[in-house]
């Protein structure tokens, strides 16, 4: 389910190999280790809810949906009237972005090149 969510938030993550996934998951685990236990519990609950929510509309769990439907489910949730649900989606997407874009490989892929050398590296 975690990978299904990550691939919906950042489609490029579908191309990660096992090493890439391990690195991404380690980034999130390190971050979550510093969060209160209540936050980790809420995240687990939200992920479970999101997995089950599509049963009502599509008759399938989130992890079994195709990419288009996964996106629709998440978009509906991020626009939900309930602040709690919107916040939850914001939090999950933040974790997915952290996991993907904190990797140096991702920064290179998108063309981000900042270094301590600054102008000296470009001129």
């Amino acid at each position: 389910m975690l990978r299904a969510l990550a691939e919906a938030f950042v489609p490029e993550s579908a191309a990660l190999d096992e090493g890439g996934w391990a690195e991404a998951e380690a980034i999130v685990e390190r971050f979550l280790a510093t969060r209160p236990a209540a936050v980790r519990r809420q995240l687990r609950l939200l992920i479970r809810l999101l997995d089950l929510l599509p049963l009502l509309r599509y008759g399938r769990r989130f992890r079994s949906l195709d990419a288009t439907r996964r996106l629709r489910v998440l978009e509906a949730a991020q626009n939900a009237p309930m602040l709690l649900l919107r916040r939850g989606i914001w939090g999950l997407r933040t974790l997915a972005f952290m996991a993907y874009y904190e990797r140096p490989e991702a920064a290179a892929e998108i063309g981000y090149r900042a270094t301590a050398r600054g102008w000296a590296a470009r001129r």
Partner: protein
Amino acid sequence: MIEREYDVVIVGSGAGGGTVAQELAPLVKDGVRVLLLEQGPRLGDDEFTGREVEMADALYEDGGGFLTADGTMTLAFGRVFGGSTVVYTGTSLVAPERVIRGWNVPDLAHTDVARRSAKFAEQNNVHLFTPDLINDNNRLFVEGCGKAGYRAEQFPLNVKGCKGSSLCNLGCPNAAKMGTHRIQLPGAQSQGVQMVTRAEVLKIGERSLSVVVRAKKEGEKGAESEWAPGEYHVRTKLIVVAGGAVGSPALLLRSGFGTRLPALGAGFTCHPAHILVAEHERPITNDVGHPKSYYVDRAAEEGYVLETCMYFPFTTAKNLTGFGPAHSALMRAFPRLQMILVLACDKAVPHNRVTVDLDGKAVVRYRFTPETVEAMVRATRASARIFFAAGALRVHAPSADPPLIERRDAARLDELIAARHFLAGKVSVSAAHLMGGCAMGGGGDATASVTDAWGRVHGLPWLRVADASLFPDSLKINPYLTIMALADRVAERIRSEARDLLGAGAGAA
């Protein structure tokens, strides 16, 4: 419990605490024992790697993701030796006269704030960059402002030997930013002010503090604490609280001062901010050079300030609205992205305040007022005009649905960018200029303020406040020089009262 005794204890090492430490340091040679406690670690120069999450974890409270109580805004503030002066961009502005006048604090004149700000500007090597150090991201902002009818002004910056890493918000990897960790704190330490890092003040009592010193965890950045890990009881004659607009009111509240100081925690303000992004046809220099060289100040007229900015991959991704293929496409355009930070100027209102939970941890209760949301919308529209005037192909505006606006729709910005699309919890809002909570005021009225104009807590002559929590309302610009100016006043008053406060001989020099 280990007992210690000092004459003055300063809590916090940022713009406020660092300034007070420097200004009280001359008392040391008169025999006054001055201690500074900092909750965060002291990092070595070689530990600033520029890696985003790693540095955010090391330098910021909650890794820069401290959430307001309803989870709709993140607050970024430093938790490191040097406080937020380690992680700001060094923008050094003097408080506007109209703002200080509007604060209406008896005995606080703008001329005095300006004079003291100038002193610290000189001390911190504040100057304007020459044109050859300005990158395309900033040049396009100036160009767009000119064409769209906005007056761009250049930020004076407090750097020395800037190499243009663009990594300011992750702590300068070249030691070029003149924060308190580079100027005021080393100066104070060389004069004998004792400094202890990784030291969290749990509570303040009558002329005493309960402090816990934490051990460095495995893999954590920074030096070990100067004191052995453990619990300390520190007795002192004077306490100066400078833990910032979240930390200071929270510390005083969990110490039980809320009953005698009803205004404690009230009046919290900040500059709720969006990062706006626009895509150009060709690559521009954006992730090299100082990121924040220009701004547009429309605070007085329209309630917002626009500033150039450039953030890192994760921060950028987090601040764009949405996810999926459209989000990824914008991220992949990174070398072609121009960025503007829009900051709304809020006002002190009763429901926005700092409180503490049952464990004494700071909780910031903050709701966006309709006026603040409207200011953000106006700022977003203005930024979009500037982006398009600078030649952008498309603009990402959080308060638009869908957020991506193409150039062909540039004439419809007022229609497309609207407050109805500002959906709290969906759009990313962050704030770094945190103010208020221990507001200064006049007349010793504890129902309306916490301190007088010199940071003296009402009714407690041994307790002072010296940081942005003193601001009775929003400053409406980047605050660090004003914090230093106010802290300078607090220190000056302590020096003038030193004989009475600290005993014979103190301040004789």
